[in-house]
């Protein structure tokens, strides 16, 4: 009897230790990734300063010139444009779904959001290549009279916008749901119309939540690789318009990995690109998540 219970307690101890071990591993993960990438990019960082690399415009890996400015600008163009497309659509749709829509509409939208979120990025890329890129090329020819290939910043941001819609929409729905009903009831009982209540009470109250949802969407878009890579054109240079091709940071890493192994400095430069991506996304996420946590506490 004693033996059996001893056995059980040993098992308990062992399984707890096992659980704790993996918990520590997970907690250490971001630190591990950060140091790993920093270690690999230290070769390049010894030669040049961080700001020098980020602001220099020349990208000639074979002669040892690594300027990340064109890639960062391309990334900013694509992500900000994507957010400008996706943001208003998500906001309007989230208000519609939480305030106006019938239960049946919400029932249809649940799986729609889930499926959109579950579609792999490469599928979005194929869709971009067979639908968006020819569409842009045709419209540009028709409206502006300009011949373009269609592989452009605009195509990239349209594809990206659709990809981040389910992500932002999910958070926004949560945010609007967490606003207490009493606030709206008070506003309605004072004679305000439904739309006035939404405009002056709901949006005002949810504002920090909306900002952080957009921030999270932005950071998700910033790191997206394959779908953007397939439609954005990948030409090194600073884009001057939305119909020109761009070359975002993730695409740079994905396209050049493998061939850079023979040149240590090139390898180091791409790892530096990954580090920049990691840091930017982490900071954006951190800021947005902190904002959302504070928002939840205030309610």
């Amino acid at each position, binding site marked *: 009897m004693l033996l059996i219970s001893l056995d059980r307690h040993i098992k308990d101890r062992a399984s707890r230790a096992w659980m704790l071990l993996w918990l520590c591993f997970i907690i250490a993960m971001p630190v591990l990734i950060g140091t*790993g*990438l920093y270690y690999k990019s230290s070769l390049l960082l010894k030669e040049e300063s961080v700001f020098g690399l980020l602001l220099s415009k020349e990208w000639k890996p074979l002669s040892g010139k690594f300027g990340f400015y064109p890639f960062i600008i391309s990334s900013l163009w694509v992500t900000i444009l994507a957010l400008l497309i996706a943001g208003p659509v998500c906001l309007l749709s989230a208000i519609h779904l939480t305030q106006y829509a019938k239960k049946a509409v919400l029932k249809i939208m649940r799986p729609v959001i889930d499926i959109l979120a579950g579609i*792999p990025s*490469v599928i979005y890329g194929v869709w971009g290549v*067979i639908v968006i890129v020819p569409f842009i090329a045709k419209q540009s020819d028709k409206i502006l009279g300009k011949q373009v290939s269609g592989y452009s910043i605009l195509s990239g941001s349209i594809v990206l916008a*659709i990809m981040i819609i389910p992500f932002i929409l999910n958070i926004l729905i949560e945010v609007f749901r967490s606003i207490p009903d009493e606030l709206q009831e008070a506003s309605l009982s004072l004679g305000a119309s439904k739309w006035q209540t939404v405009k002056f009470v709901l949006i005002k109250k949810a504002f920090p939540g909306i900002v952080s949802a957009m921030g999270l969407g932005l950071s998700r878009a910033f790191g997206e690789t394959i779908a953007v890579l397939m439609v954005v054109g990948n030409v090194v240079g600073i884009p001057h318009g939305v119909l020109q091709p761009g070359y975002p940071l993730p695409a740079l890493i994905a396209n050049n990995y493998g061939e850079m192994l023979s040149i240590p400095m090139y390898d180091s430069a791409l790892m530096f690109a990954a580090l920049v991506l990691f840091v930017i*996304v982490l900071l954006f*996420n951190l800021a947005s998540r902190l904002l959302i946590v504070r928002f939840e506490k205030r309610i």
Partner: protein
Amino acid sequence: MTKKLLRKIEEGLFRSLMSLSTCIIIFALCLIVFSILIKGIPSLSFEMISQTPRGGFYFGREGGILNAIIGSLYLATGATALALAISLPVALYMNLNLISRKKTVNAIRFLLDLLWGIPSIVYGAFGFSIMIILGMKASLLAGIIVVALLIIPIMIRAMDEGFKMVPPGLTESSLSLGATKSEIAFRVFVKQCFPFIITGVLLSFGRAIGDAASVLFTTGFTDRIPTSLSQQTATLPLSVFFQLSSPIPEVKNRAYAAAVVLTIIVLMISILSRLISGRFKKTSIKF
């Protein structure tokens, strides 16, 4: 009077814009699924899904995408199994042993959300640099490990959502009957939250099978079906990505067919997780 009218117009305008936005989202999904299916289904034949590409995946005009289908299933199954072995203990520990430390648990949740936000290309680059340090080559095993790292945060958070809702009374009554904490974890929590575990696993499997950026350098690509963990492996997303850029129409058709297969798998997972989570809800104890 005109002010009232203007207000009415404003409300009407915004309401129609809202409905329009919702319609756009539904329309976008339909457009994506239909255009993938229309493009891919004509090239989807029995030969396509039962043969490996002949004469090289990039140049060969014959053969199918069996290498990528099998490779993706191996990779996603392996990664999901590995992630489950790590995620389940962590999620259980968070909700059972750390239950009195709300702040610590919330900090861990926050950290997991951050990890979830890290782009998969960063995981890929990190995994690749670790592989070089260890002297490993691109292989199925390396891919499984990197993809597992990628999906662990998603899986833990999905399970955590379930474990969070286990009523404390259930834990207390088990403790009073003399059960150890690990017994409660694996016999009570796992049983009670089974639907959440299943949805977490399915969600992660879908993510694992669809991710391309993390396997780009870590699993490589090959025409053959892998027979061991140390071999390079083809995956469906990369099969789409590589073959789509080919100028040869037959090769392009393989990419479209692979896209259809991938889409169908993902849709099936979505439907399955809905069905399962609805069915198992009946078996858990209600309070």
